């Protein structure tokens, strides 16, 4: 019995694959900029959006996309290190999660709907969601390709980039907006609570493994794909949640990169 015999599995592979590629690329810059926690918080902001959309009878994915992207751009606009400040981000995160809870309470949602938003439901992705993911992923990759050069400069040396006339604030707004989109996509696979596993774990492991920029981006994508596709496959054979396996693989990859670096430093 092969996983490819089932349409839900083919859909799951397609969804996990598309999300892994975009999260692998965007995550590299996110980790480089020290904004991992901001990316995590955007998932929670998006959760409030998705729950609010349900309340008003709108598709939750649309609410997720609009609110997490808008929230990201707002964070970029506030600027001056807001996206790196843990207390501010933590409060936004908690507030958004509580707001989402309130909306779900009004909606009298079933527990399974809340669980799907929070922890993902990659094995239940329908064709409509797949198309949405395709467009979101393509758009994300095109924007990232367009801004990659100045973004890399501004991420590595913000003061210097500013002196060279790079519009650092504009880049920050654009980038966190893109991260909002990526988070909305990743939430369809692993849920808003576990976007860290696809967005941050592969990129952080890749940055530990190699100091070369382009190699690290390629490795980040490869690891994210291995996580996403491997997690879906393991879920099929074990009947454990896919989000668990994807996150477990992410933690394992990061742990392996950490150990390898530690051993290299000791020798």
């Amino acid at each position, binding site marked *: 019995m092969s996983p490819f015999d089932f349409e839900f599995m083919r859909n799951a592979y397609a969804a996990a694959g598309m999300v892994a590629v975009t999260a692998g690329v965007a995550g590299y810059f996110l980790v*480089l900029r020290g904004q991992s926690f901001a990316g995590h918080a955007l998932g929670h902001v998006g959760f409030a959006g998705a729950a609010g959309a349900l309340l008003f009878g709108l598709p939750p994915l649309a609410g997720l996309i609009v609110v997490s992207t808008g929230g990201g751009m707002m964070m970029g606009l506030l600027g001056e290190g807001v996206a790196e400040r843990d207390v501010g981000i933590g409060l936004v995160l908690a507030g958004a999660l509580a707001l989402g809870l309130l909306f779900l309470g009004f909606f009298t949602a079933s527990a399974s709907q809340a669980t799907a938003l929070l922890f993902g439901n990659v094995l239940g992705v329908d064709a409509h969601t797949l198309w949405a993911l395709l467009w979101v992923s393509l758009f994300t990759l095109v924007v990232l*390709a*367009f*801004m*990659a*050069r*100045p973004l*890399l*400069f*501004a*991420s*590595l*040396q913000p*003061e*210097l*980039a*500013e*002196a*060279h*006339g*790079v519009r650092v604030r504009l880049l920050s707004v654009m980038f966190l907006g893109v991260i909002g989109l990526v988070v909305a996509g990743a939430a369809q696979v692993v849920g808003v609570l576990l976007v860290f596993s696809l967005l941050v774990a592969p990129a952080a492991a890749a*940055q*530990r493994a190699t*100091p*070369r*920029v*382009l190699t690290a981006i390629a490795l980040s994508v490869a690891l994210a794909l291995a996580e996403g596709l491997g997690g879906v496959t393991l879920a099929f054979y074990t009947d454990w949640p896919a989000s668990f396996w994807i996150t477990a693989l992410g933690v394992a990859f990061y742990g392996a990169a950490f150990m390898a670096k530690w051993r290299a430093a000791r020798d």
Partner: protein
Amino acid sequence: MTQAVELRGVTLGFPGCTVLRDVDLAVQQGEFLGVLGPNGAGKTTLLRALLGLVRPSVGTIEIFGATAQPGRSGIGYLPQTRPGALPTVRGIDLLAASLGGTRWGLPFSSAEAKSEIAWALDQVDATALAQRPLAQLSGGERQRVLIAQALLGRPRLLLLDEPLSNLDPRHQRAVVSLLRDIQQKLSLTVLCIVHDLNVVLPAVDRVLYVGNGHVALGKVDEVVTGPVLSLLYGAPIDVVRSGEYRFAVAA
């Protein structure tokens, strides 16, 4: 010959903090200037104003005869580096990202950019160092790579913000003599913020003290005196000499 840097009647600052008050100042081309002053006096703000990142509320700032504005070619800048905030990349990636980092698109380097990077690294003998991750370099080695980066685009003016901080005395001397060498070889004008005057004494032509809203620019013997420093620090200061060295002490 136009001045490298010229300030006319410049008042500069933020709400509640005046960095410069009605300051006139001219730095000639080919000068090596040590920039000193108390903490928080506005040395970094002055450099940022020369880069056009901070606008004076009154007066004009000209670099080689043109108004200071961000993105001008001809200026190499080395911002203050915070240890621990080093990106996990190689030196050469840092240089490649900064060269042409103002253009949209994918971060690939052209052959022309690669040869420019090779030239800059060669000037400070950092070609091999740039292949290693920045985090693995010693403080002195890292400064060499960052000085190479400031040389990209063949600037005529170098603005260096505390390039000697977090270095031990031996590496401080090495960086100062390297800076002096490239300044002479490439006929650069250099403004270099430092904490300790004595380390840069062998390199500087003149010194610029910033403090209390005022500046004092001149030869070391004219500026580093009790009365001048007392005015700038806003506290009585004596200058004690020991051989070549000078020490400012609270009077």
